[in-house]
């Protein structure tokens, strides 16, 4: 455990602490600007991961109607359901771990950033003494300390007396969360979505009431950057009822795969049944260029389409051609 702690300090914590000090020195001895600058830099460095996470997350959401169908279809056979779900993921090229792995990789970075800011604010003598063991031997590091803790109306080492920061933290996190929250007709999923939407912003707003403003500044900056990235990757998402998202190539790839899978599924369904011509509404539902509530429409479209699948009298399962 001690080795892990030392490695953590050496590889992650010390570089961040020293870079923050240097940034502060060159940004007019302003620690607030240093926090904002480093948060931007770190987000920039992690952009591929963040984008992958968002794209995967979106692709997962787009698979939800198919998932719902499978859950309905194999409600009594959990084993089969799991197999079919895995099959669907595999065929659509979407990995559920695609959203978790990037998130897991980012978490240590966020925690290290958090720890660095806390250590640099070093309010108590114990903290300040502890900080001395994380410093590089660069002269600029030694001359820059202690860092000034004033930024705008804030003392970065104490909580915001005007309570603006908790509001900003909660507000920006809510917007960010709302953008990635899918709209769904399933009441159970709606409850979970609502929980996710409100829980994190409220918790962070609450702890901002008592935590140093420097951390809150970091959270607000992170959220604003994430909102911007999310907008460019997935559009406004759940924030607006109808919106045309900016879809990068990667999303198109996912959509294409999903469309292919759906076609395949349709072919399977077709093997023993005729397909009723889709209505214009169903066709709209198949348009994957839409997002937000349209996904819900799409879900209904799929469902309606499946309802439209009916066996032609006189044709039995035995007539089903063998699948190759």
């Amino acid at each position, binding site marked *: 455990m001690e080795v892990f702690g030392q490695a953590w300090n050496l590889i992650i914590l010390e570089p961040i602490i020293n870079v923050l000090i240097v940034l502060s020195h060159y940004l007019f001895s302003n620690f607030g600007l240093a926090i904002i600058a480093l948060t931007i830099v770190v987000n920039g460095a992690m952009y591929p991961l963040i984008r992958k996470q968002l794209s995967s997350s979106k692709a997962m959401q787009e698979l939800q109607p198919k998932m719902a169908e499978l859950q309905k279809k194999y409600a009594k056979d959990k084993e089969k359901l799991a197999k079919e779900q895995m099959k669907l993921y595999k065929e659509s090229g979407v990995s559920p771990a695609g959203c978790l792995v990037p998130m897991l990789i980012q978490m240590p970075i966020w925690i290290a950033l958090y720890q660095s800011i806390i250590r640099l604010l070093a309010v108590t003598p114990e903290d300040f003494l502890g900080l001395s063991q994380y410093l590089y031997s660069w002269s600029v590091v030694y*001359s820059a300390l202690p860092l000034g803790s004033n930024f705008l109306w804030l003392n970065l080492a104490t909580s915001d007396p005007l309570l603006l920061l908790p509001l900003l933290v909660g507000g920006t996190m809510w917007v960010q969360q709302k953008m990635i929250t899918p709209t769904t007709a399933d009441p159970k999923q709606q409850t979970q979505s609502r929980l996710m939407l409100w829980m994190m912003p409220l918790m962070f707003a609450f702890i901002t009431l008592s935590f140093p403003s420097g951390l809150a500044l970091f959270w607000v900056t992170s959220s604003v950057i994430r909102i911007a990235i999310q907008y460019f990757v997935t559009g406004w998402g759940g924030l607006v009822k109808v919106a045309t998202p900016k879809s990068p190539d990667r999303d198109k790839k996912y959509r294409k795969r999903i469309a292919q899978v759906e076609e395949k599924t349709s072919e399977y369904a077709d093997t023993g049944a005729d397909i009723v011509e889709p209505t214009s509404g169903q066709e709209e539902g198949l348009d994957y260029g839409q997002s937000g509530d349209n996904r819900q429409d799409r879900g209904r479209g799929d469902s309606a389409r499946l309802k439209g699948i009916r066996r032609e009298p006189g044709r039995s399962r035995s007539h089903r051609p063998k699948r190759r």
Partner: protein
Amino acid sequence: MEIKYNRVLLVKVLLFLVIVLVCGLSVFGCVGRGSIPKGWSGGVVADSILFLGSMEGKLVAVDISSHTRLWEVPLETSEQTSGFGCAPASTAVAIYGSPAITEELVYVGGYNGKIYAFSVGKDEPRWIYPREGNLQPIVGGAIVSQGKLYFGCSDGKVYALDAADGYTEWEFQTGSKIWATPVIDSETLYIGSFDKKLYAVDAATGEEKWGKPFETQGAIISTPVVYNNTIYIGSFDRYLYAIRITDGSLVWKSEVKADNWFWTKPVVFNNTIYAGNLDGKVYILDTETGEEIVDAIDLGRPISSSPVLVDDSVIVASEEGQVWIIDTTNNQKSELKNLEEKVYASLCASDGVVYIHTSKEELYALNAQSGAELWTLSLRS
């Protein structure tokens, strides 16, 4: 075994991650923020009584001949809370500086921004400064000279109070917070500040001496030492400085640059300065030239407690609790004792005995020559 991936599982995992993150942040916040300052008061001996502040926020008087607690009195209980489970509803007042003593009173400053004056044996303070409200945290120690009590404060001011009644004599503003203990020599007070400057102030009037303060490239926390009309001070810029007492001009800046901050007060003896550093080394320099007399003695662990001179030996403790003796005749070190407890408080010596207050609230009395443990006393209630 196949893993069942679905949205419910995903949401649960995300919820779990959020909870872990928030809890983790809270824990790191509590730890990193050091929400509960604990203090590390060193001791002062007078008439066979050792006065020091305990980590429970008490001023304690120990009879060093019978090694028993004579008297103890708690400072006020802090009302400050940090919320979110980081601190209890109230905490003891942390005491970092060593107390100051006169024939009548004992003075001690608290991290709650108050100075207390007690008559020994009395539970009620004679006076408290300020009478109402609090100053910023007081980290350095207080000193008494010619009826005045002097101390520096985190609000960047040096305060001079009437030692008898605690009324303000004068205040002197520096550019940043002060954690250092002042020193007085020939009616002049010298004190370092986080603004990287060393100030010389008229102890009677509070007026600044020299044309301008002496400036280094790093914050100054350590207490200066005055020796042969020269002030010796270590800085966060990792250099030691010798400054003329008359006009604040530089005599020398050490050629050697340490690897970390000079945090503690140096010891000067026989034209040699011994300065402990947070890089774990004791730097031994010639007071006249600033050149290293011998290579720095490496104790292996940071030195954050001020060393003490006993006869012709310098006793120094590392943060990890190893106590060393440096023979000033040959500048060789040898281990006196390994306390195996953290030591941050300044060492204190009297009649060949060294008193060490550890972070586990143990008070050790060691024979300064042999390192024999004479007695220990727990300062816990």
